[in-house]
């Protein structure tokens, strides 16, 4: 008599025998599932017990399905209780994905369309900036109208405006990742997730256009950033 069958007769369950119900329900890991399959193939007594378990499995589902469903009263009671709860402030525990998905779900289709248009415009703007930077390697300067051809008068932009960017994070970006990214680039969020875009301002105000374009390019390649474009 085979080992598992002997154990059945002695009423002491074996390791494989104990796993049979989970095998029937399909909730074993592949390794255990394979062990059970092999044991079933070589032990007819175990296979007979497995057939009994499959009946129990079907019977339990049958019984539970016959229990019906709760009335609408339960849901009404729940949401009345939720309505009576104090309003909560957005916490830091939820990830950016949930916030963004929640934000988008609250927008009307028209608003979403406008947001998409704004995003497209921002992309075109970014392309324009990059093209301008590539075409001119000169430092930022301007020429006066009274400029002499032989002796150009130029002046550096001493009081440069702060460098800012519109950034969209990937849906599964977590708050911790975003915080680390802000530290890395010495940036801070100065405006919320309007249209899914965050407005960032960089601490380094002495960047040339080249440097800023390079920074945006690096930021764009970050795993949690799906879009980074310059903004006034």
């Amino acid at each position, binding site marked *: 008599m085979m080992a598992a069958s002997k154990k*059945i007769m002695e009423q002491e369950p074996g390791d494989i025998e104990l*796993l049979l*119900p989970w095998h*029937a329900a399909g*909730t074993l890991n592949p390794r255990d599932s394979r062990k059970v399959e092999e044991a079933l193939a070589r032990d007819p007594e175990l296979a007979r017990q497995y057939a009994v378990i499959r*009946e129990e499995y079907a*019977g339990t589902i049958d019984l*539970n399905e016959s229990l019906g469903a709760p009335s609408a009263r339960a*849901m009404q*009671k729940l949401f009345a209780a939720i309505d009576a709860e104090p309003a909560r402030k957005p916490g830091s525990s939820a990830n950016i994905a949930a916030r963004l998905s929640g934000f988008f779900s609250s927008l009307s289709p028209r608003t979403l369309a406008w947001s998409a248009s704004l995003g497209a415009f921002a992309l075109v703007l970014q392309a324009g900036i990059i093209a301008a930077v590539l075409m001119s390697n000169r430092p930022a300067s301007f020429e006066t109208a009274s400029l002499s051809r032989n002796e150009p008068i130029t002046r550096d932009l001493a009081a440069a405006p702060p460098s800012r960017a519109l950034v969209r994070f990937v849906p599964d970006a977590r708050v911790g990742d975003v915080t680390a990214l802000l530290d890395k680039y010495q940036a801070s969020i100065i405006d919320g997730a309007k249209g899914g875009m965050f407005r960032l301002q960089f601490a380094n105000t002495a960047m040339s256009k080249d440097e800023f374009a390079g920074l945006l390019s690096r930021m764009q390649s970050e795993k949690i950033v799906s879009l980074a474009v310059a903004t006034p």
Partner: protein
Amino acid sequence: MSATQAATDDVLIARIAEGDRLAMQVLYGRHHVRVFRFGLRLVRNEQIAEDLISEVFLDVWRQAGKFEGRSAVSTWLLAITRFKALSALRRRKDAELDDEAAGAIEDTSDNPEVAVQKKDTSDALRRCLGGLSAEHREIVDLVYYHEKSVEEVAGIIGIPENTVKTRLFYARKKLAELLKAAGIERGWP
């Protein structure tokens, strides 16, 4: 439950943590029937089981921010349901509970002749499943109906994994005894 649904359950919980009522409605719609049935099998009273649902999902609303995703949301819901059901049972007097339980679900162990007369194995099986103790009912339901793994059942009930396995084995043996008393021989044990 599919991995995709488990993932979206996590997103729903994150949105609920932010106070998203719509996400709560979706999660409720997805899980309330199973929560109700699990609760009903434990407390054996529809009114109490319905009250349990409200309590369970209100807890989810309040505690969503603390959910760390270590288990599936469905497993978390069943663990809360079990805790609430046991609390509800403790609140009631034992005598009252026994009377209502006896009236709520017929117990095959008390009337095996009926099952014999019906000669209907599946019906007898259902009746005998209803005749198991609360401890055995819950583990049978968790494994067969709610399709929880050994680890998940251990987490929900709060017992070691080996105890989960042996408890289900002895629940099945008890079921076999009830069926035998009802005249149903299945060849095991």
